[in-house]
């Protein structure tokens, strides 16, 4: 597209995702008709993906502060204090739309993008996680998408050399046309050497480093802000291609430069590439930038200003250097064989002035674009509350048969096939490998560790977004507590359908309100996040999926807990109340084919008390194993502890509830602990003093899981069912089945 010849017609404006009202705002900001380059810049800057225009109003209601928060939302990632002058920097981000269109590259570049958000701020990335949602396993595309996404995440993370230590994977038909790939990175930095994106110092050089700019990914941010239809695959050219090797070099070069005190500001080129990075830096610093597009390293000849500014080529960074340090910085990037180019300088005009082949090709006011992007208070309607289903209303299937079905269902089946394709040990600090309640990574060279998890139960969020939002936060809190970590902060990745529909907007509003309530109650602030809307195909929306990523601190890395039973003859204790809540449960879905009912409520005051109690028991060394009770309920949690160890258990269900409700109810706020008989007495007494409900339900025994009066199943049998499903499902690809 030439900036001179392309007329700005209503069709061109619509193709750039701008509404007529938004275009009127463009005209009033510009005071003239924009050229095609300028229109393209408005388009990506005001895309939902970059501007959060539908969600901003509600995101502002989330709690974002705590004494340990160094930097909340608004920068590339959130920053929290982890003691000893160190900070943890983390964020989760979606790459949903590109991963559906081109799963390998879509997922790979999702990992690359989130890594950059974290090392941009001065942190060495130390762990990756990913929360994945795929369509129904029987859907024609699901295998291909699982295979490509997992290979892409592994291909990128393994090469960069950052361990992938945790995550979650669900399947549901609502994701048939819109899978979710939410990637999270955690990094560690010195608390006094955090790098921000606000430009400063008129005249300071603006420097481009990393890969060259090509024609890939143009309009990715706009694509991520529209619904899909039948022709979505034609959008494949807007998916970027990742180069993890260059990313690895970029990490090392940036960290090396950051150690020299040369950088004023730094910003990665993510969605909307050079446009959003340059506007963001200038806007935050209240300055202007004069940029020479001929100086931008280019992979292809004949690129137009429009293409250069909108390219989403990967592995690129923009930075402002202190004056006179260009040569020192250049030497570092040349050592790592990366491009380094001074592409402009800061001005005091407050305008972005782009020149190309000697001509000014764009001249835009920065603040109106970056700060005055539209903000909508979209109409919304509250969700219809689902009725509470009493345990007695749910058909009772034989308990052991139901367990066999549940332990092999797609959501509960072992995800070993996935996480063994990820290097989860590189960097040699992984204490808690995938498969546990949370990944645990030692803070290199210290005796402490970080625990991390991702959580969301989308079916609860559909039934009641408010309760589902609370539950996602509470489950993350529980997963961290279960390994002995003090929960510190969360990052959120809000995945929803089309916000222009009042019922979808209602899901967003209510989920955010629920999350906010839980975060406030648990002193668990939101420090970073990302929003992915328009996850709809042909008008069908995904389940509302506000994924929570969370980080906690373990002061003494030798004092953690894990899921496997450790010895036979140990006492099994359940913390929390078991009332047999089967509404919205996996039992109801997998055994009865129903997805109705209200989800289990979360009692936040109890969550905090129980979490603190569990952490205290772990720190005291009173427990031998800990597992939170979540999807599938108590018996599934016990089966998982047996599967992780090969040791069985013998359990007695109380007579006060139907057995299937006691075994598979998904009442919230529960943990299973094991301890020696002597320690169990200590734990029960301590629980009573702490007003925490604790009940002995049995003991570890033999190599079978037995529920008194209900029968028994060998751990071996459970294992075949639990481990068999995913490899069997994926292997069917090779035979063309």
């Amino acid at each position, binding site marked *: 597209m030439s900036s001179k010849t392309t007329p700005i017609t209503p069709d061109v404006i619509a193709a750039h995702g701008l509404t007529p009202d938004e275009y009127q705002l463009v005209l009033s900001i510009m005071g003239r008709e924009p050229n095609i380059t300028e229109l393209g810049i408005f388009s990506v800057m005001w895309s939902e993906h970059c501007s959060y225009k539908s969600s901003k109003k509600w995101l502002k209601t989330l709690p974002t502060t705590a004494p340990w928060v160094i930097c909340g939302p608004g920068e590339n990632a959130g920053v929290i204090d982890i003691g000893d002058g160190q900070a943890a920097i983390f964020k989760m981000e979606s790459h949903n739309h590109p991963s559906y269109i081109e799963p390998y590259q879509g997922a790979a570049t999702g990992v690359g993008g989130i890594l950059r958000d974290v090392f941009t701020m001065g942190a060495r990335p130390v762990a990756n996680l990913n929360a994945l949602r795929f369509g129904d396993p029987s859907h024609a595309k699901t295998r291909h998408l699982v295979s490509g996404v997992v*290979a892409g995440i592994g291909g990128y993370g393994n090469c960069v050399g950052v361990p992938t230590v945790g995550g979650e994977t669900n399947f549901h038909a609502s994701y048939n046309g819109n899978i979710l790939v939410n990637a999270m990175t955690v990094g560690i930095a010195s608390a006094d050497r955090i790098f921000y994106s606000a430009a400063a110092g008129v005249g300071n050089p603006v420097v481009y480093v990393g890969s060259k700019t090509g024609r890939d990914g143009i309009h990715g941010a706009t694509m991520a802000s529209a619904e899909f239809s039948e022709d979505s695959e034609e959008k494949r050219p807007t998916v970027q291609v990742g180069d993890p090797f260059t990313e690895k070099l970029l990490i090392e070069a940036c960290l090396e430069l950051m150690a020299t005190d040369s950088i004023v500001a730094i910003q990665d080129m993510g969605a909307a590439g050079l446009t959003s990075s340059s506007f963001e830096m200038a806007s935050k610093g209240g300055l202007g930038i004069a940029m020479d597009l001929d100086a931008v390293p280019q992979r292809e000849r004949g690129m137009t200003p429009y293409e250069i500014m909108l390219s989403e080529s990967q592995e690129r960074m923009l930075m402002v250097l202190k004056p006179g340090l260009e040569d020192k910085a250049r030497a570092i990037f040349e050592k790592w064989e990366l491009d380094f180019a001074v592409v402009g300088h800061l001005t005091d005009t407050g305008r972005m002035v782009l020149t190309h082949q000697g001509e000014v090709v764009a001249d835009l006011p920065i603040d109106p674009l970056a700060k005055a992007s539209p903000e909508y208070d979209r109409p919304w309607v509250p969700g219809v509350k689902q009725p509470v289903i009493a345990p007695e209303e749910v058909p009772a299937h034989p308990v052991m048969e139901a367990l066999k079905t549940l332990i092999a269902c797609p959501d509960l089946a072992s995800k070993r096939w996935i996480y063994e394709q*990820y290097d989860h040990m590189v960097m040699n600090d992984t204490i808690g490998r995938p498969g546990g309640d949370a990944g645990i990574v030692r803070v290199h060279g210290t005796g402490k560790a970080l625990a991390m998890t991702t959580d969301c139960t989308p079916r609860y969020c559909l039934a009641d977004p408010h309760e589902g939002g609370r539950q996602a936060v509470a489950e993350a809190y529980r997963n961290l507590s279960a390994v002995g970590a003090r929960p510190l902060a969360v990052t959120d990745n809000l995945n929803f359908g089309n916000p222009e529909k009042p019922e979808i907007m209602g899901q967003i509003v209510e989920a955010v309100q629920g999350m906010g309530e839980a975060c406030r109650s648990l002193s668990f602030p939101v420090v970073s996040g990302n929003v992915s809307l328009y996850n709809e195909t042909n008008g069908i929306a995904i389940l509302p999926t506000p994924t929570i990523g969370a980080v906690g601190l373990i002061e003494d890395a030798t004092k953690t807990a894990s899921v496997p039973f450790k010895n036979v003859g140990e006492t099994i204790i359940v913390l929390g109340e078991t009332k047999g809540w089967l509404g919205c449960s996996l039992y109801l879905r997998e055994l009865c084919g129903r997805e109705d009912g209200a989800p289990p409520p979360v009692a936040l005051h109890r969550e905090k008390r129980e979490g603190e109690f569990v952490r205290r028991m772990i720190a005291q060394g009173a427990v031998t194993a800990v597992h939170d009770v979540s999807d599938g309920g108590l018996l599934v949690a016990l089966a998982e502890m047996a599967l992780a160890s090969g040791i069985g258990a013998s359990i007695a269900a109380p007579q006060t509830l139907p057995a299937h409700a006691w075994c598979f109810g998904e009442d919230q706020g529960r943990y299973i602990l094991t301890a020696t008989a002597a320690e169990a007495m200590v734990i029960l007494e301590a629980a009573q003093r702490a007003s925490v409900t604790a009940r002995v339900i049995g003991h570890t025994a033999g190599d079978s899981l037995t529920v008194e009066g209900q029968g028994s199943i060998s751990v071996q049998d459970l294992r075949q069912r639990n481990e068999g499903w995913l490899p069997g499902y994926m292997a069917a690809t090779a035979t063309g089945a």
Partner: protein
Amino acid sequence: MKAAVIVFPGSNCDRDAAVALEAALGHPPLMVWHRETVLPDVDLVVVPGGFSYGDYLRCGAMAAQSPVMREVKDKAAGGLPVLGICNGFQILTETGLLPGALIRNAGLKFICRDVHLKVETADSVFTRNYEAGQIVRFPIAHAEGNYFADAATLDRLEGEGLVAFRYATPEGAVTAEANPNGAARNIAGIFNEKRTVLGLMPHPERLADDLLGGTDGKAMFDGLVEALS
């Protein structure tokens, strides 16, 4: 004793190897950049794991052409002990310091998990702290670890006792089920003729610390320090 770890662009287990060496040595090893043409005066060279130069060609093929590897090859010919782990093993075969090649895993996927290995001989500076027949647990993390060589080469390696480690069951049986990647004759690691060069796909440096879940790999580094000090 002094040790060096080679660092290529794309190496990502260089720090892990350095940490394991430092724990055994009591002081950090030297980190040697790929463009160096002269090796410092050391008693051991470690070629670490990772994705040297991105491994966008055959794994290790580009690293084998690097300036530093020409020097490593010369010094190895003079008897300097060289340990190649994972990508390091691939580089050593590409360099010609070890025979055979590492091809795509039989299952075509990257695999990261602990495996059990049978130590074939204790008669080397690398394995002196193990016993022949001992079963150890090391992690693997690779997509191209399927050891391949022609039958004559394999026969020679076996005949001359140059197989260092084989994939085995926890009980020590060398079976197809215990072979994670399709490696010929379950070979996980091999020596050169003088047993001064060892290449292996599994990562001993990843299980050399109790907190990480085991210490079977520690004996290799301790043994090297004892033998070469």
